């Protein structure tokens, strides 16, 4: 048996090249399984939706695998599914992400399919209508789900509908109904380009061969012009309390939170540690301990951060019986106050730091885990040595820092409280 691979992905085993057209490629060989994972993205997302057509980026991304120059819908499906591969494209806030997972024996051929769908989509009219009708039903389903409604309301209240951060990526019914084929084709022409794009490949490959194949597939792709700027979000937050009545539901969902640091902000690592203590460590941290274990109010009560390119959020969420909403909100706010007013115990801080650093090998076990990690490192410009630096970034956070960021971001007086569900018991 070969020895266990203990080295972290880094400059010694990851090859990074940038094509002349601005596409960056990272490759790490891993012969542990006869599998190859490709993960990538282009710099176009829902933040680029025109004001009158929210959901355009999402719909455009959905059409890519429904017809391209060399692969119509049926041929695409057969080619990919025949060999049990996965090839998906989907829109996010700033990015349109794509992924390809295949057995090593099939990977090379599928790169050509990926290139065709990304570079030469045809937006067949028939599929425009099908995709539209699918998303309309999905929108309808989202509007039936208390957690989704509470979350949507939260982001809208913070950032407003004018910015992508304040809108669901899928947009709204009106916009989805209004989008025409030409809108998607035009959006594609003006926003899809190799500049700023990232492709990561890990698995049973040879680096030189992969780079050559990607160069052949993407190297001559030209951008129409430079990268498209994204508008900056501005904070809207007016009222601090929102209630979405969903009379037919049994349980309510609650979201309590505020803005948090963007990914590049100096507070990012302190917030990451503080958030873990607040609502993730073990069985959902302090929030889980208080709201679930002690009070028995909720099956889930946790905290989460979103740290995006331009801004972030820090929130707590729970699913509770309508009669328990007020008690839950009060408990969550009390935990915010506690974190902000008393330094965490040294052992509590040490435990969380041990978790955040200790769990890293689990995230890097599989090709997908490595690909996602390398992708994020490239996306945020963290450097190939990031994994070696990461433990110190976490362990250097002090109890005072945790308290400070809690006080800065989690202020009960200005925290947003969103509830979706039936009237209180």
């Amino acid at each position, binding site marked *: *048996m070969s*020895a*266990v*691979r*203990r080295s972290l992905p880094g400059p010694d085993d990851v090859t990074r090249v940038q094509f002349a057209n601005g596409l960056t490629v990272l490759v790490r060989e891993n012969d*542990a*399984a006869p*599998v190859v994972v490709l993960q990538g993205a282009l710099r176009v997302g829902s933040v680029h939706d025109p004001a009158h057509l929210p959901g355009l980026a999402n719909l455009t991304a959905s059409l890519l695998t429904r017809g391209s120059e060399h692969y119509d*819908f049926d041929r695409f*499906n*057969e080619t*990919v*599914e*025949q*060999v*049990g*591969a*996965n*090839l*998906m494209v989907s829109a996010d806030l700033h990015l349109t992400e794509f992924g390809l*997972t*295949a*057995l090593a024996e099939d990977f090379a051929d599928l790169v050509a399919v990926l290139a065709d769908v990304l570079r030469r989509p045809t937006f067949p009219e028939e599929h425009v209508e*099908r995709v539209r*009708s699918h998303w309309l*039903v999905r929108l309808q389903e989202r509007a*039936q*789900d208390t957690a989704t409604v509470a979350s949507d309301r939260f982001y809208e209240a913070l950032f407003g509908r004018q910015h992508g951060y304040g809108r669901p990526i899928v947009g709204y019914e009106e916009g989805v109904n209004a989008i025409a084929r030409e809108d998607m084709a035009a959006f594609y022409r003006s926003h899809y380009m190799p500049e700023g794009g990232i492709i990561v490949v890990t698995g049973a490959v040879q680096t030189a061969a992969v780079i050559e194949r990607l160069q052949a597939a993407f190297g001559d792709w030209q951008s129409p012009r430079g990268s498209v700027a994204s508008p900056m979000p501005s904070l809207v937050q007016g009222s601090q309390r929102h209630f979405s009545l969903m009379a*037919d539901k*049994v*349980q309510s969902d609650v979201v309590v939170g505020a803005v948090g640091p963007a990914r590049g902000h100096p507070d990012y690592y302190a917030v990451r540690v503080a958030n873990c203590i607040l609502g993730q*460590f*073990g*069985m959902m941290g302090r929030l889980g301990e208080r709201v*679930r*274990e002690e*009070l*028995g*109010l*909720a*099956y*889930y009560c946790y905290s989460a951060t979103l740290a995006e390119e331009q801004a972030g959020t820090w929130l707590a969420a729970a*699913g509770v*019986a309508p009669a328990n909403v007020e008690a839950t909100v009060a408990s969550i706010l009390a935990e915010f106050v506690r974190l902000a007013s008393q330094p965490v115990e040294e052992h509590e801080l*040490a*435990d*969380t730091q*041990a*978790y955040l*650093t*200790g*769990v*890293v*090998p*689990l995230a*890097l*076990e*599989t*090709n*997908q885990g490595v690909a996602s990690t390398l992708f994020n490192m490239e996306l945020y410009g963290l450097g190939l040595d990031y994994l070696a630096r990461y433990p110190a970034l976490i362990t250097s956070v002090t109890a005072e820092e945790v308290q400070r960021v809690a006080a800065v971001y989690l202020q009960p007086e200005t925290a947003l409280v969103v509830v979706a569900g039936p009237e209180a018991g």
Partner: protein
Amino acid sequence: MTDPNWMRTTLDNGLQVLLRPSTVAPVASFWVFYRVGSRNEIPGLTGVSHWVEHMLFKGTERYPRGEFDRLVARAGGLFNGMTGADWTTYFETFPADRIELALQVESDRMANSVFDAAEVEAERTVILSEREGSENSYFQRLVEEVQATAYVAHPYRHPIIGWKTDLQSLTRDDLWRHYRTYYAPNNAVVVAAGDFDGAAMLDRIAYYFGAIAAGMPPPPVRGSEPAQSAERRVVLRGEDPTAYLLQAFHVPAATHDDFFPLVVLDSILGGAKGMGLFGGSANNRSNRLYRALVESQLAIDVDSSMGPTVDPGLFTIGVTLAPDVDPRTVEEVIWGELAKLQEGDVTAAELAKAVKQTRAQFAYSSESVTNQGYWLGFSEVVASQEWFATWLERLAAVSAEDVRRVARTYFSPAQQTSGWYVPNDDALTGDLEELE
């Protein structure tokens, strides 16, 4: 798939041990499967297995409530517990040098969980909250209705989380009795997969688990399902506007000779799913049901599913209907597809595709020691190691005639249970009332 690099043994107290050392990544995963699930429950006590699972996180003498999760997390571990119809399982995945902690905590809570009365009460509302969360979904409610209707006698008809009335009345003694009956080494399988030395791991397992006394053999499951000879229907109505359909057919247990032909049938109808829980492809638009229902715009989504079970299980087809579509039309189309299979309309290419898709999914899934541990333990409880190890071979041996035969044997209107969720404002509501 067949891997000479694994070991199995049974300790004197009856504990089955499966070890799969590997040297791919410096991680290790440890699982304990108890042979108890909702299939072991009786009316009035449904949900007890799942509640016992919750209580296993509520402390022992040595590790009071909160200690377990704190110790595991600070060691860089991930953990969870799951209750199924046939088993209850707990796992920890750690950086390889911390794996012994898993043996400590699992052996301790196998024997020494406290079941404190106040903790039982606090957990009652947590489990009710878990149940109520899924009650928010009409699709989940439909699943519960269809399951309870498809089975008239066998305990598989119970929801794993339990009926609400039972959750409100279960006592600490009920939970304690259930724990003492089923949580014994002779009713359990432990699995370790990952970066460790096999002999050393076996030694540690014997050290931690060997001293736990065997219990009485657990009582057998009573209640087998009589053959279904009447079509069963259930209609759920509500305010949510998205309509769903769920059909179910009885199929044999995982160990039956017809299981693999049915897996191929499932792959042709709804795409290959590999092993189910951690498998299944994101790309699934070339299967027969998608073409018949989604491309024809009767549905926006369709899914077929058949999980391996100890006792005869269900083959289900779930559909999210497009707006203003009559569920009877959807049923006709589904029957049209089943009829084709019953006529033997299966191509060699489809058979080969089922095998290749499954091979790919096993390859992707096998990268994770957590997945490996799950499938080794699952297979031991539900079928056998040989069943798992020969999966692809058995799939490849299925012929078009086999698929035709099982399509005829297990699928007929008299053998179906059909559930509809119909929105209240649906134009159909009036039509349907005329049928009743």
